Every structure is written in structure tokens, then in C-alpha cells.
């Protein structure tokens, strides 16, 4: 599968995403520059973590106006697969390619730690290598990951199965302490209504090798790779 990993100024996990896809998984992955307007034939576009354009205004607020994002929006409208991790998720929300928004963590501080996630919908191109209810262990590292959306919208999203990942404890239970950033309904990852755009705060690209703490991130990338059109 051909992957395009977008490099915004201030992207940080772009190299790690490329490494996970190309070096660890042997996928055909390359960098897309933020000033470019074409996607180089990518079948899946990944928006990586980081602080695009410094994120001094509001996370993702500037990146959504970058030249490459016009192409990404069109690609998504045509049904192309787009995944955004961390800052990528924030950008997708700002660009209205995903519902809701990400605000400052409940603790008001940056959090870097491994968390447990429950797969809430395994019938998506991003989770099909997992089963519903599977637990994934992935790291988070963000200051603004508290997911919010209007109550009506949340209810509709739940009904349509757009909530893909939820923060849980190691037993799979939703608890207050297992929700690291205070996200509404412990939401860690959501898809759009067409299920071709997916955003998540955890970092699958940092969970692809046993030596570095775990391989559960591969489940997500393998799902996508198996969904090539």
C-alpha cells in the first residue's frame, strides 16, 4: 500500500510514522511536504503528531489552512483513507473532517504514558484486524487531548459506531482514573460518518516493536494496509 506522511513545520512524529510504516512494516511510505498540493498517489494519508506551525494559536488551527490540506480534504471527500494521530487528529477536527474538538487535558498539563484502549468498532478500515472489545496498549503524549462534542452529536456518533477507541483500564473497564485527559465518554479515537477518516490521540507508530514497549499499534496499520482499494 502507498502511504503519504505529511510533514508540517513543527511535525514531530512524522519520522517515527515513516519508520514504523516503511522500516518496520515494509510499506511503501513517503513524506509529503506541507507546501505541496499533490499527494503523490498515496492510498492512505497520515497526519502525524507534533506541534504544527508551533500550535501557538490553537492546536491544528494553522495547519488546516496549509496548501496540502486542501488536497487532503478533497482526497477524503473522494473516499480516500486518512488517519490523524495526536496533532493529526487535532488538525482533522479543525478542518471539520472529523466531528468534535480537542481541548486542554483535565490536569492542564502534558501527559506522556502508556494507556489501555478498547476497540469499540472493529468494522472500520482502521480496526478490521482487531475484534470488537479487544484491548490495545498504546502511548499517549499530549497536552490537549480532552475530546469534546455536543451531547446530541455524541449520541449520534455512538449510534453510528463512529466512536472507535475508548480509554479503559487494563481489565477493559471505563473508570475515572483510566481516562487520562478527561475526554467526554472516555473517547480516544473517532471516525467520520463514511468511516474513511480516523483520528486518535494515542500513537500507534510508537507501539510497533517489542523492544520499545509493545506492538499493538501494528493492529491499526495492518488494518489500513489490508483495506487497500
Amino acid at each position, binding site marked *: 500500500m502507498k502511504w503519504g506522511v505529511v510533514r508540517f*513545520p*513543527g511535525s*514531530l*512524529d512524522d*519520522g*517515527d510514522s515513516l*519508520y*514504523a510504516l516503511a522500516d518496520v512494516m515494509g510499506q511503501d511510505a513517503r513524506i509529503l511536504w506541507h507546501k505541496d498540493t499533490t499527494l503523490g498517489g498515496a492510498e492512505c494519508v497520515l497526519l502525524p503528531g*507534533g*506541534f504544527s*506551525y*508551533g*500550535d*501557538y494559536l490553537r492546536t491544528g488551527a494553522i495547519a488546516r489552512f496549509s496548501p496540502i490540506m486542501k488536497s487532503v480534504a478533497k482526497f477524503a471527500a473522494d473516499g480516500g483513507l486518512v488517519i490523524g494521530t495526536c496533532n493529526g487528529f487535532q488538525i482533522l477536527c479543525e478542518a471539520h473532517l472529523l466531528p468534535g474538538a480537542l481541548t486542554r487535558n483535565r490536569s492542564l*498539563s*502534558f*501527559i*506522556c*504514558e502508556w494507556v489501555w484502549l478498547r476497540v469499540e468498532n472493529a468494522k472500520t478500515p482502521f480496526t478490521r484486524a482487531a475484534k470488537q472489545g479487544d484491548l490495545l496498549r498504546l*502511548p499517549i*503524549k499530549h*497536552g490537549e487531548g480532552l475530546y469534546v462534542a455536543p451531547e446530541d452529536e455524541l449520541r449520534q456518533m455512538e449510534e453510528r459506531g463512529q466512536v472507535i477507541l475508548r480509554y479503559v483500564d487494563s481489565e477493559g473497564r471505563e473508570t475515572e482514573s483510566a481516562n487520562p485527559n478527561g475526554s467526554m465518554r472516555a473517547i480516544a479515537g473517532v471516525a467520520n460518518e463514511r468511516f474513511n477518516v480516523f483520528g486518535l490521540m494515542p*500513537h500507534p*507508530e*510508537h507501539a510497533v*516493536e517489542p*523492544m*520499545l514497549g509493545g506492538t499493538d499499534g501494528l493492529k491499526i496499520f495492518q488494518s489500513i494496509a489490508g483495506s487497500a482499494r
Partner: protein
Amino acid sequence: MSERAPAALPGEPKVDLEQGRAHGLAADEYRKIEQIIGRTPTYTELGVFSVMWSEHCSYKSSRRHLKTLPSKSELVVQGPGENAGAIDVGDGWAAVFKIESHNHPSFVEPYQGAATGVGGILRDIFTMGARPIASMDSLKFGSFDHPRTRYLLGGVVGGIGGYGNCVGVPTVAGEVMFDAAYNENILVNAFCLGLVRKDEMMSARARGPGNPVLYVGSATGRDGIHGASMASAEFDKESEAKRPAVQVGDPFTEKLLIEACLEAGRTGAIVAIQDMGAAGLTSSSSEMADRGGLGIELDLDLVPLREAGLTPYEILLSESQERMLIVAERGREAELQAVFEKWDLHAVVIGHVTDDRRWRMRWHGQVVADIPVASLAADAPLYDRPAAAPKIQPVRKPPSSEPHPTPAKALRALLDSPNVGSKKWVFRQYDSLVQSNTVEGPGSDAAVLRIKNSRRGIALKVDSNPRACALDPYLGAVGTVCEAVRNVACAGARPVGITNCLNYGNPERPEVMWQFIRGVEALRDASLAFGAPVVSGNVSFYNETEGRAIPPTPTIAVLGVMLDVSKHVTQFFKNPGDVIALVRTARPSLAASEYSAIFGIDGGPLGSIDLAREAALVEGLVAGAEGGLIRSAHDIAEGGLVVAIAEACFNPRAILGAEVELGRAGNADAVDFFGEGASTVLLSMAEGDIAEVERSFASRGLEFAVIGRVTSEHRLKIGTALDEDVSELMRIYENAIPRRLAGGD
């Protein structure tokens, strides 16, 4: 010289001896300036001399002592004298690393002070052509009772995270200590390490008269003027007014600079490059020229400015962040400018290298400074300051008549101490994973990173022990190096290089100078014993407020290399049934221990240290790890043996228990249980491997003793003296800092 000598600019203050004093120059220093340039300096020149001759930039009190440090080994690629040192770590890679202080700014403005400390040390690494891959921080705060401590802790940790997280360099380890001795003068020492192909390292040595000089990065503003001078004076009640001398960081620009400078380096068009750090444009231009035995001429009208109306004085002394100075190969400026333009950064030619060894600055068509370049750099004043041991030895507390607390009570009190308790509240705020190299992040003895496309790994540790240094500045510093080295060896890595940040009081006081000299002697002796040279470092003097100095605080960071990173060892017990053993070089004592500090007892003097045995211990630990015989290794530090056993039980993957006999356990001995100081390592191994491990340590002349067993039961049992629930102990340990931040006490 056909050109007219620089003259005073309209409106500039008059320059005389008094003005020199106001700039922090001693009378004889001022006269020396007049002698060097053969006339009264202009106001701009005076400012330039005053920063370049400040302690912070010139190392005038420390240089002659630092020269005695060992800086050579077959692995040294770059010793002191460049922006950072470098060590060959194998497979064609050099590790470039350095630690630096940002104490004064962090006390005045904790968030920006700490943030720009991180930014500055990063630039020292990537100017060498190395991609920064790991950061560490050594932090010293006042006691939690002090009203400013919580504010300073929050600000410093926020600043380190705010900057470090945003530039994509993981913070992988560190240390944090709280002690009333730092109430009025905190320490923030930032370490960074980068990797570069050995044959692609860049230099800060100018070459080629006529080569253009490029200004790169952020525009120059009025921030940070006289930051270097602030770092070269004591604090007093007016220090709050020095906030404008603290720089403001922009980590986004730093990230762009990292990528752009590394990309520009690959063009081969860079001759020399240096960060505009302390003393900004002045230090970078004069030091690069002087290293190359050349001169430099800059046109200050070409410097990108944040606002109009900056004077030459301000432009030259600004410490605005995220700026670099580059000497390019003539004719290849455009190639470099294209790279910086791609990253939306300034890259402007502002002058050129000359062969007349002068530092000449032009502004509005006239020369505003014209100084022999060496007088600003290598030929800056050098002092042999008087040193004398204090007449009064440290005040000893009278022997306490209070009975010792029970072991259980003492253990709980120690785990609840912010110096022993978990630092998770701090390191959870740092990205420790980015770049996908972190095998062991914060929380174990040393951080472990893999080197991509290589079997090798590196281990990193930063340590200090000011309480021991206060008792004996020599033995305390030797012990600090031993501890840092031992931690790296516990991970299974061979120590190969040292960098140091030497934090002391006012060097003009003979007893402080004596502490410093003893510290340097200790560093030299320990470095030689371990065969680990000191390749870079930093000195921070004047850590005093209102005449009270901090305890001598040499901060030591050690780089270790392991041949096979998959064989690294952590501090945590792994399997129930494994055997627990101790290996040590000496008997512990309560001197300078956390136990003594908490219970207010006199721990007595420090024990001696046998460096040959210390080196043997390191060899034994590395051999044990390489042979796959050691399942866990934990250095016994703050809190002593029983705390170390508890910490080894706190495996983040799955809590374990331990059953231990300490011989005289019925007769609980606080020294056995909670003593520190001796080089002692807590090991666990499979039952079948005991004989081989014991033989290995015995052959090195080290005491080895089996003391117990790892259990699946979550209890920590020591003979009949102690039987505690491990989960409960861990709760106390993890809550030590959060409960103090939450509580109103």
C-alpha cells in the same frame, strides 16, 4: 590602519572606570582593556568586553583548573573546546553531548529560564551536525515548606516540557532534589546528546578569509541583554528586577532550526557554525574567528531586527534565542539560503572572515568596535584565585537522644520524601518516546536508547550529591561520579564519557574556590579510574543569594555504551523465585543520607572510596549483563537498601514482593537498612546463575552476598523487622510529590 578609530555615538553614556565598574568589570580589568586597544573603549566596546570577560563566558576563575581534567581516550572524537564533546559509540556513530546550567534565569523566571536552558543546550549539539536524540535534566529546588518552591517547580517542569516536547527531542531521564539549601538559588542543569556520523561532524572554527558570515534564525530583539552578566553575579533583593535579562524561547523556531541546520550541513557548504548563546552575536563571532586564528567583520545594519532603533550595543549583546551564526564557503551562500528559505527562516549575509585577527563591527557606515579578537576569547583574563579550606568544619548535630524509629515507620517516611518518592509527576509531563529510540525511559536507574540500524545501545544517567559534597567536597564529588557510572553499569553499559556542570558559590571567596578545586580534583581522579574522559562541561559560579552559597553541587552526566542493547538490565525484579543478592565495595553509613536528613540525626563523616574497587564493580556489572546472568540491578542510593528493595518490587508491568534476611535483622540497624554512601548494588538472578555471578564478583575482589528471594506475594519482608504490603508502599511512593502539591501544608 586607514580607518578612523571608533568614536562615541550621539547620546551614548560616557565611558570611564566608573562605567566599567557598573558593567561588572574590576578596575584592573578596565585598565587592561584600555591597554589592549590603546584608547578609551567606546560604550559598545565596553559592553562587549564586559560580557566576554564575565565569568560565564570567560571561565576566568575555572579555566586553569579545568585544564587538568582528563579529556583523551581512544574513543574521544572531540574533547573540550568546541560547542560540545563527542565520543565514538561504534558503527560509525559519534555521540555529541554536554550539560549546561540555566540556574539564574530559572530562579528569576522559571518557565522561560528552564525552557531557554533546554533550547541552548540543544543548539550546542546540533551545531556539531548531530541530531539531538535525548535530553536529561538535573533540578534542585528549595524545601517544599518554602513559599516559592511549588511555583518554581511548576514553572521549571512546565518550561522544560513546553520547550522539549515541542522540538521533538525526548526527555529520557533526570533527577530532582528538594533541600532548603536551594531555597534562594535553584539549580537547572540541562543535558542533551545527539548522534552524528563520525565523518560528518561540524565545527565552530572559522576558516578562509573572505568567506561570508550568515546570520540564521530568529530576528534580534532587546531580550536577554546582559544575561551572561546576570549569571556572573550573586542574587540579592533586586534580582526580581532582572526579569528582562531572561530570554524568551520559541521552540517552534528551534525545531525549524534543527531541521534546517542539519539539512544545510549536508550540503557541505558550511565551514563553521555556532549558536548565538550567552553574549549572542558577540561571542559566536569572536569565538569562531579566534579558534581559526582569524578576524571577522560584520555590518550590523544587515542584522534582522525585531524592532527598529536597536543600538549597536543592544544588537551585539542581545541574547534573543534561536539564532545561529554560520561561516559559509564563498560562492555557496545561495545553496544555504535556499535550505533556510525552505524552512521559512532568515539567512542573511552580514559580514565576512578576515585575516587581520580583529573583531570589527560596522554600523551606519562607521566602525563602532575594533578589538583584537583574541582578547575577547582565548586571551580573556585568567585568574588563579586564592583557595582555602574553611576554618570551621561543617556544623555537626549533637547525637540525638531520640530512639530510632521502627524500620516500618522509617521506610514509610523515606518513601514519602520527595527526594526518594516517585518523580512521575515530573517526567509524565515530558515526551520520552519521540524518535522511537527509548528502550528505557525515566523511572529506572539509567535511561537506555537503541541506535537504529545497529545492535548497540547507549545508557545515560545524571547524578549529584550535594549533601555529601557539603561534608567533603572531594569525597562527595568522587562519590557522585561513582554513582552515575554505577547506574550506567547497572543497565549493562560500559561508561565511556563524562560531562559535568559544576555549580558553586562565589569564586572570589577562598572557601568556595577551595570547594571548587577539590571538586575538580575529584572529577579528575574518578574519570581516570573509570577510563571515562571528561569531554565537555560547564561551570556555574555565583550561586549565592545575600551571601549564602549553595552546597557544592557538581552535576555529573555519564554516557555508557552497550554492545547489544537487547541485553540491557533494569532496576525491577522480574520473576518470583529469583534470588536477591548484594554486591558492594564498602560498608554503608548514615552520612549525608536521606534518613539523617529526615530524622535530624548526625550521620557522621563520609567513608573513604576505593576507586579501584569501584572500577571492578563496574566491570563485574557489565560482564554480568553481557553474559545474560543478571535479571535486575539497582544502585542503592537515597534511602538505602530497604528503599532500594521496595523500588525493585515496584515493577510497572507487575508488582512483586521480596523476602530478605539481613543477618542481624532482629536487632534492626538503621545503618544496614537505610545507610548510603557505600557503592552497593541490589541484584536479582535465577537460582542456577548464583555460582557464576558470585565467582565473577569474587574474582574482582568484591563482597557478594545472597540476601533473599523475589516473591509473587505483594509483601516486603525483612526477617522479623519488617512486613509491609508492597502496593501500599508504592501508593506512598507515588504520592510523595502530588500530595505536597495538592495540600496546603
